[in-house]
């Protein structure tokens, strides 16, 4: 009996040692890469913002000039959404924020929407989606120019009933074999524009000064 106990005990000890070593390895790698990974994510986000609002047009750091807003209906997300603000000489140039279209063909479509101070779209870029390759993935800027059709659009161009795909009587193209995907994107961009129109001040409001507390 005690022999078996000892066997089991030593097996448990060996297993525990391996768990500890494995966790240690992961912890060390995490420690050495965490900064670089955060930096990568920062750069990728800044790259995405600059694709919508060219760096030459602004003189602030949009990643440091942010405000968190919660509006599940407009943003398609229960979580607070970070709004990045682009300014030049203190003047408002544009806001960039993430919008989710929950009704894509295979789940949510995340996109970065940029809106200029005058209410025109600086542009839209899809950040993450699981739409069908070859059909719905034409919403990606590198696969087709479709997403660029949003550039310079606003709530006046087209009017409200034009904010739909052509099949539904709107002005935006659908894709051959894929209507659900562009329909979801158009609706989400329209929601973002309407939110901006009614919350312009809140979106550009200068952030509270104690932003360093939560890093």
């Amino acid at each position, binding site marked *: 009996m005690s022999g078996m106990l000892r*066997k089991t005990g030593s*097996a448990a000890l*060996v*297993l525990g040692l391996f768990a500890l070593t494995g966790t240690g390895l992961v912890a060390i790698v995490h420690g050495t*890469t965490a900064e*670089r*990974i955060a930096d*990568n994510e920062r750069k990728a986000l800044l790259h995405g913002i600059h694709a919508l609002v060219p760096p030459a047009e602004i003189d602030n750091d949009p990643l440091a000039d942010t405000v968190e807003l919660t509006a599940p209906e407009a943003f398609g997300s229960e979580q607070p959404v970070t709004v990045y603000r682009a300014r030049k000489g203190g003047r408002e140039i544009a806001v960039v924020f993430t919008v989710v279209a929950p009704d894509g063909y295979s789940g949510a479509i995340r996109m970065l929407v940029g809106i200029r101070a005058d209410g025109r779209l600086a542009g839209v870029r899809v950040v993450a989606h699981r739409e069908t*390759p*070859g059909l719905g993935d034409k919403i990606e800027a590198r696969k087709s120019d479709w997403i660029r059709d949003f550039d310079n659009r606003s709530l006046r161009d087209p009017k409200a009933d034009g904010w739909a795909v052509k099949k539904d009587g709107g002005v935006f193209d659908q894709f051959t074999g894929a209507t659900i995907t562009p329909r979801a994107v158009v609706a989400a961009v329209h929601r973002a524009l309407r939110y901006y129109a009614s919350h312009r001040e809140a979106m550009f409001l200068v952030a509270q000064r104690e932003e360093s507390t939560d890093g």
Partner: protein
Amino acid sequence: MAEVNYGQVVRDGLWTNNAAFVQLLGLCPLLAVTGSVVNGLGLGLATTLVLIGSNVTVSLIRGVVRSEIRIPVFVLVIASFVTAIELLMNAYLYQLYQVLGIFIPLIVTNCAIIGRAESFASRHAPGPALIDALATGAGFTAALVVLGGLRELLGQGTLLAQMELLLGDGFSGLTLTVLPDYRGFLLAALPPGAFIGLGFLVALKNVIDRRMERRAGIKSIEITNGTTVEE
């Protein structure tokens, strides 16, 4: 312990006992990521790195770990390496990680890795275990690249598109547009295309094997002489 026949180890990993085409192991990542050459190569290399880490480690600890707990220990070892490599890819190959991201953790579930740990590494010294990892990894990577190339060609009409994700921005011009103005063949790009493509490649391998057997004029392939590697 018997003398290890390195030629045989290499030949098994690359061809005779290829993880993807013969053992049909690790199909989940195989089918999910092989939409293009770059994705296949990226996941293949990541899998090879995990194989090297796990095979060598398992070989080093083969005298320490009792057989009752060897499987949980193997799983711990493999999971640790996979997580470490996922973090390293996120840090140093960020763009490729954006593409392959969700499939990297799935390497843990690739039975080929625990299969090599159990059937080879736990019974051999670190040297042969390393060679076995390299050969198995290369065989698996080759399978992913061939299937990825086939699907990329049929699905989009290109080869080597987006290689810059893996090799750096200097290689963005590698894309070969094999079929200009190609409309794309959707089936090849979708998951069923992966199954069909894999089926054809397995069949092709069997045809080649049979040809070689016939040419050798004997039914059983001679395995005692491991100096030549048949490709």
